[in-house]
């Protein structure tokens, strides 16, 4: 398959792995920020190809994982309203809230529909004028532009029954906070999809302020090994900077049109991240201009009090302080079929990836 097979060529993968082995002279810890990277790394068995000195740790880039439990609680409360249809990406429906989850509510009869794009949600809104359609907008700069486009389209089509419940977040504040808090890493494998939208400029602070390199990586095995090699080279030569490995998708300036759309619909606000707490200007809030499509402002609902599970260390795992195997619940109490924390649910969550591919 074109544009895929070339990036999974075993010969090149093994050459790159060999080159990493030759170049590395000291222990190096790299964090892959993006959950898609974590999944690829585990799926292709990449740790097995790397030298002992090189350690990969998973970061906070799984949208479902960093979303707060109270977000799920509120979505559950919406789903219990008779006149509401919840539309959501599939990942979210099994994430546990304080006492329920969307798939449990669905089994009890709530109208919850998995969609593949916000445009499907708009179609549902058109077809059900008497219902309120709530789209659960989670994710980083990757999914946020399509939510913005959805809101603009809803406004243009005068779909007054369409609402976005936004927990959209932006990546750089979490990446900077991690280093600030003293998580010991030597460089970042930078998020590929986020950077397609934002460009590489948003990471400039990381080498400047913290002296760490960022290499924006694609998702195929060769991309990841090439990025690791670039980071190892940077570290060995003490030349930390922002580089793009994923040049076939990421331009330094990013996708200007998507950035404009984001700016049109959203403004920055403080937001809560699992594992981090509140990070300044890390969330995307719907601007006043589009408040009529803001679920939080328009649909008033009672939300149950927040209950966090005991023993779950999702937060530490998202910050890279611990690995899934360090959690006492991992693989025993907490499994993909009975997840305690969100990291075990999403296909991009590090606990789920470790459980499925590397137990």
């Amino acid at each position, binding site marked *: *398959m074109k544009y*895929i097979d070339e990036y*999974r*060529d*075993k010969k090149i*993968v*093994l050459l790159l*792995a060999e080159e990493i082995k030759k170049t590395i002279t000291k222990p190096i810890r790299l964090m892959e920020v993006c959950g*898609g990277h974590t*999944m690829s790394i*585990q*799926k*292709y*068995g*990449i*740790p*097995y*190809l790397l030298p002992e000195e090189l350690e990969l740790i998973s970061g906070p880039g799984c*949208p*479902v994982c960093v979303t707060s439990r109270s977000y799920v609680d509120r979505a559950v409360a919406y789903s219990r309203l008779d006149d509401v249809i919840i539309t959501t*990406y*599939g*990942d*979210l*429906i*099994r994430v546990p809230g304080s006492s329920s989850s969307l*798939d*449990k509510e*669905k*089994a*009890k009869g709530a109208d919850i529909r*998995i969609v*593949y794009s916000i445009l*499907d949600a708009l179609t549902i809104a058109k077809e059900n004028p008497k219902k309120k359609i709530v789209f659960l907008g*989670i*994710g*980083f700069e*990757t*999914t946020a532009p399509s939510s913005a486009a959805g809101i603009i389209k809803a406004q243009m089509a005068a779909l007054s029954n369409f609402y976005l419940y936004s927990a959209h977040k932006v990546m750089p504040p979490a990446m900077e906070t991690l280093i600030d808090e003293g998580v010991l890493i030597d460089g970042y494998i930078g998020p590929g*999809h986020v950077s397609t939208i934002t460009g590489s400029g948003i990471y400039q602070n990381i080498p400047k302020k913290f002296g760490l390199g960022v290499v924006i990586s694609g998702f195929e*095995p060769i991309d990841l090994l090439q990025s690791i090699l670039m980071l190892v080279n940077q570290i060995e030569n003490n030349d930390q900077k922002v580089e793009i490995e994923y040049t076939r998708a990421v331009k330094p300036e990013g996708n200007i049109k998507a950035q404009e759309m984001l700016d049109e619909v959203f403004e920055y606000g403080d937001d809560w991240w699992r594992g981090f707490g509140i990070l300044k200007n890390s969330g995307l809030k719907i601007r006043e201009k589009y408040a009529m499509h803001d679920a939080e402002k328009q649909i008033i609902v009672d939300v149950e009090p927040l209950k966090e599970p005991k023993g779950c260390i999702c937060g530490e795992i998202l910050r890279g302080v611990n690995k899934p195997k360090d959690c006492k619940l991992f693989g025993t109490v907490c*499994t*993909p*079929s*009975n997840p305690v924390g969100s990291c075990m649910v999403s*296909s*991009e969550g590090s606990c789920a990836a470790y*459980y*499925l*591919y*590397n*137990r």
Partner: protein
Amino acid sequence: MQLTIFITDKMKNKFDTILLGHGSGGKLSHDLISELFAHHFDNEILRQQSDSAIIKTGNTHLAYTTDSFVVDPIFFPGGDIGKLAIAGTINDLVVSGATPQYLSVGFIIEEGFPFKDLEQIVITMAKEAKKAGIKIVTGDTKVVDRGKCDKVFINSSGIGLLDDRNIHISSGSNIQVGDKIIINGSIGDHGMAVMAARNELNISADITSDCACLNNLIQSALEASDQIRFMRDATRGGLGTVISELVKGKKYGIHLQEDQLIVNDGVRGMCELLGFDPIYVANEGKVVMVVADKDAQDVLDALKKHETGKNATIIGEITNEHSGMAWLETMVGGKRIIEMLSGQQLPRIC
């Protein structure tokens, strides 16, 4: 009796309602079967927990199986719900090493369902059964109010005769280190054909379901070797689930080679798009076999003579390393484990 209360309470605490994942064929289904059905229906035959129940009657053994079909959409490229109902049940019998004899079929039909669609399904079923040399000998029909079922659901049960020398096949009790693992072709075709046929995705992909009766294919394999040590059809939960179920709790391990797995382009493309792993995607015409090393080539040759086995491949072997676990050597030379899928595979969001 203390135990009964403990187990059912445990189940109740976990879930107060049935979730879609309980029907996915993965870990949730497994838990539901072992902690509820098998627990309450418990007997020595059920305890075998194989695709078909093996029952000794007089001098011979019967294989007996049942399956229900609720596929949506009911017509898809490569087949329809009727073909599935015949092939699925026949395959459950033949992978136990049995020769299928008779089938029953039960229909639950939604009020308002077009007669011509039902007729088409029934004609397919008759054709498939004839091709496989099986008689449909009894049946049942129920019609329910509109909205109380989705178009049509079909249950089919089947009986086959099981030769004494094949009795070990369904449990895999004769499996030895060094045995080869064979599959009769590409993986993931059925699951992705059905996904693509669902209008909600708006994907037009050239994917045909592999739905097929495997009795002739398996007959040839059994004639080629008396050293076939295990067979299972890789339906819901895909190849990955069969492999992880097989190895769980065993003294041996399994080693698979990802570069030996065949995944058709359409299936690969859709899996890439949706973030699915093809080893967990459903098949309806694939059998996983464990065969003694010395006979593996003979079995492979026998399979390749059939349309349903022309792409048969050796995909791995039984090892004395990492007992109870299945490891996959990935296409790029890395290694990872194969774990049972839990819940349904959900599309990724970014």
